[in-house]
């Protein structure tokens, strides 16, 4: 290596170092790009795949799901457990138990795709936390629906309600930017529900399974 190339290389090398420092200085002058997570959160996109949830039929205030079990069969990791029962005065079966094993769920979305009656969708909840494993191993989706159903009943005192009036209650609105609150003792703690119209659903109470109305032939999980 001749002296000339050595000097050339040293000069080019030194220049590249200065260029690098200029770039980092330029970047340092720009505003920060991070989201201060617990203090601020981002809205979830419309197609966000959270855990599965049952859809409330705006006409009846009950689940649309008729416990056909196709989602159970579509699930690659056998995370779902669904049971149905016939209610009085109804011809078809309706769901009486909908349990998700969130510890094995891979959020692939096969269940939602498989549903023939569009009775399940993805929730926008993503920061689901709990201290109790059972809150995930036996995540009671039906319980959440019942809570929604109670809300629905409050706004619809006299069933059957006209569908037009009930529509807004169930239309999934885009998720709004929400602050991740520390819902005190309730577990699983979830971010406030995507639909602002239903504040009470944000923290479902981990009630015993007996609260579900009719599930005499529940299989052991």
């Amino acid at each position, binding site marked *: 290596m001749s002296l000339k190339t050595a000097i050339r290389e040293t000069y080019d090398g030194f220049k590249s170092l200065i260029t690098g420092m200029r770039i980092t200085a330029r970047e340092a002058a720009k505003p920060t790009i991070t989201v201060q997570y617990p203090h601020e959160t981002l809205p979830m996109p419309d*197609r*966000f795949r959270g855990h599965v949830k049952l859809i409330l039929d705006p006409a009846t205030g009950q689940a649309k799901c008729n416990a056909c079990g196709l989602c159970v069969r579509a699930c*690659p990791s056998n995370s779902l457990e669904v049971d149905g029962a016939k209610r009085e005065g109804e011809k078809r079966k309706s769901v009486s138990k909908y349990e998700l094993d969130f510890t094995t769920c891979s959020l692939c979305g*096969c269940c939602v*795709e498989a549903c023939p009656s569009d009775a399940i969708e993805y929730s926008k909840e993503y920061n689901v936390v709990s201290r109790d494993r059972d809150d995930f191993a036996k995540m009671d989706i039906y319980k959440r629906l019942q809570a929604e159903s109670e809300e629905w009943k409050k706004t619809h005192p006299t069933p059957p309600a006209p569908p037009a009036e009930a529509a807004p209650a169930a239309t999934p609105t885009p998720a709004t930017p929400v602050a991740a609150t520390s819902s005190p003792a309730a577990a699983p703690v979830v971010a406030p529900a995507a639909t602002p119209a239903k504040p009470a659903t944000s923290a479902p109470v981990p009630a015993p399974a007996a609260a579900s109305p009719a599930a005499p032939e529940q299989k052991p999980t």
Partner: protein
Amino acid sequence: MIAEKGLITSGHASDGTHETFTLNLGPQHPAAHGVLRVLMTMDGEWIQRAEPIIGYIHRMHEKMGENRSWAKFLPNTSRIDYLSAMNYTHAYVGAVERALKIEVPERAEYARVITSELNRISSHMVWWGALLLDLGGFTPILYAFDDREKILDLLEGLCGARLTYCYYRFGGLYNDVDDAFLKGTRDFVAHMKPRLTMYRELVTDNIILRKRLTDIGPISADMCRRYGATGPVIRGAGVAYDVRTVEPYSVYPKLKFKIPTYPQADSMARYLVRMDEMEQSLSIIEQALDLIPAGPFMAPKVPRVIKPPAGDYCYAVEAARGRFMVRIVSDGKEIPYRVKLRAPSFSNLSLYEEASKGMILPDALAMMGSLDLVIPDIDR
């Protein structure tokens, strides 16, 4: 420079009189991305033998494939190489489509190309950041993640997941590409071009990086062939082997792109190949955005229950790390008889023992970084 290094290296490693010791690098080590263990026999800082030991996160995806239906295996394909999940799903979906002789609508194919290439860029960004982290540069990974976040946001808006997309379906897509995605992708391409210039000025031209990668870890074309190393590793050895052109799939034949190759066969060549590939991917995305037709996103006649006719079918794609091939063997039933996943990182790592012989420890780690390993891909 190379003779100099060679002199130091051979002078020590070939001399049998030196006392050696065993250095156990991993399975938890900052330079091993994930749980990779390398058992090194060292002579001072010189490596006499480095044996990668793998299997720490082996999940037996291939067995999982044999006890669930064809469609239920789809989510698994995103979890092999979590950094280029789209490409991997593409290979599996392609194999089943090949068996079922499903004609995928053009819109879906273009959408697959766009998402696959986006995924390739995001994967290369992680590699770029991680390599620089291996070399002791901390800042680039955060710049890369800033830009990568934009890709993840786009893909999340499209299919609802950020990493394990599971977006392709037999015969099409999980849902249609919307205008917001197409526009967002256009914006991203425009945003990314000056950023790549910045990457080059900050890192690629940097004298320290050049000194650390040039002439380090030569992997010749013949060695790639004997070990089955593909992707940027073989292209960095000057061979223009790219599944997208050698075994054209999807709509790649309709798109114009260059296969970047560098003949030096060293770590810098592999580095430059990936940097150029990002540019090429941007150009592919731009073309695909212009060409994407309107129309259905699912093939009209996809059977509800997938039962491919008996036989074996292969489908290879160019994933971010090289050739990923799925070989499915069907016996005509609802459940695969055998799913073989040919992972590129597996072959790319298998040459490490030969290639790292006589290297100094930091160089060996720089070379490992230039191989772009994803450990779940190796272990499957």
